[in-house]
């Protein structure tokens, strides 16, 4: 029997090692897998490369991971925000490396990894600092930059419901990077608010097929921190 359920977040992240690359879903706090990140912080791993849209908000989740000094490098589109003080401090102190990627290129490069493409020519960023030194090409009169896939050892994402085969559905804009990160990581770990029996999810409405998800951990909403 295929059963991807883990009993708790700590067990689900227990094999994430020093130096691992970890995608973290979420856009702001929506879709941020806070409990999985807390479990990762509890493991005291070092030199993690994080791929995420932001660099942490407030004092929890990714922000806490940064605050605890676990992140060597972050690949993201929008690190600086009103409440990104832990990243700001670490960055100014030279303790964290930043690879800034336009948000759509971040998504497209994650998708390219998930889909097995070797590289893509994207128009975004052409002629800007963020394309400095990169290969470019004019195709049909339009200018493109060659960008490479972004893969990761792990993806930590948050969904609404899942079943033991790993099928997932999401909640509103908390979907964001979850489905594409699930496709691009060797091991995708999803925290879900509720586990449902096999067959309970309408096969027409599954957003992430279980083939892209290796582990699920049910963390009921009542137990989860408020997203606000």
């Amino acid at each position: 029997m295929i059963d991807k359920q883990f009993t708790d977040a700590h067990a689900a992240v227990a094999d994430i090692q020093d130096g691992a690359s970890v995608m973290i879903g979420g856009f702001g706090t929506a879709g941020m897998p806070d409990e999985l990140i807390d479990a990762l912080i509890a493991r005291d791993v070092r030199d993690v490369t994080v791929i995420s849209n932001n660099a942490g908000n407030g004092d929890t989740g990714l922000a806490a991971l940064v605050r605890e000094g676990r992140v060597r490098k972050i690949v993201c589109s929008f690190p600086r925000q009103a409440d990104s003080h832990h990243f700001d401090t670490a960055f100014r102190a030279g303790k964290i490396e930043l690879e800034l990627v336009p948000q759509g290129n971040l998504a497209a490069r994650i998708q390219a990894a998930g889909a097995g493409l070797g590289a893509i020519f994207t128009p975004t960023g052409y002629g800007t600092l963020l394309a400095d030194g990169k290969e470019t090409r004019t195709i049909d009169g339009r200018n493109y930059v060659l960008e490479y896939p972004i893969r990761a050892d792990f993806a930590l994402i948050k969904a609404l419901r899942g079943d033991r085969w790993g099928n997932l559905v999401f909640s509103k804009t908390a979907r964001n990077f979850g489905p594409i990160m699930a496709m691009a990581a060797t091991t995708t770990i999803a925290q879900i608010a509720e586990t449902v029996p096999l067959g309970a999810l309408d096969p027409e409405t599954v957003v992430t097929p279980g083939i892209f998800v290796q582990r699920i951990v049910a963390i009921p909403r009542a137990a989860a921190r408020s997203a606000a």
Partner: protein
Amino acid sequence: MNRLDRDQMAARVARDIPEGAYVNLGIGLPTKVANFLPADREILLQSENGLLGMGPAPAPGEEDWELINAGKQAVTLLPGGCYFHHGDSFAMMRGGHIDICVLGAFQVSVKGDLANWHTGGADAIPAVGGAMDLAIGAKQTFVMMELLTRQGQSKLVEACTYPLTGIGCVSRIYTDLGVFAVGPDGARVVETVDGVSVDDLRTLTALPLGSALAV
């Protein structure tokens, strides 16, 4: 000199958004445009974080923090709206499916180059978000900004000095003093605010602006 305030600027932009348009409003000033869309037009707002058919802010206390916009503000979804992942969201932009995006700017050049993500300051922490995708992806990119900096320098320039967001991507600039068309043929005054002349704008920008308007 007469100047539009920010709400008036937003209302002016809103007037140029046609029925049926798919529109992305950048974070900051452009967000205000949503408040002035004509009630008799169906206009669909896209938010980069995966929703189409964005509705107004919820009543206080009704916020759902899993239903937010690109500025991380709580929003609502109109009947007929839908959710999708980030890959599809940026395919909408980069693939040319968004009719209009409205962005703020530090500078726009007379050719339509845009600078709006980075001051280039040595100690600034850069953040780009979806600005570069939006700037080059939408069918039309509008900029909404005050024409002058607080120091009185024109933000419509011959060539941007700040780091670029995109090349030749802006077609129109809505400012507190007038509306400009920019592009391969340079900058042209399309409209001036009451009491402002084309020559005033030429003086303020120090640019040889074209115009079809009476001087």
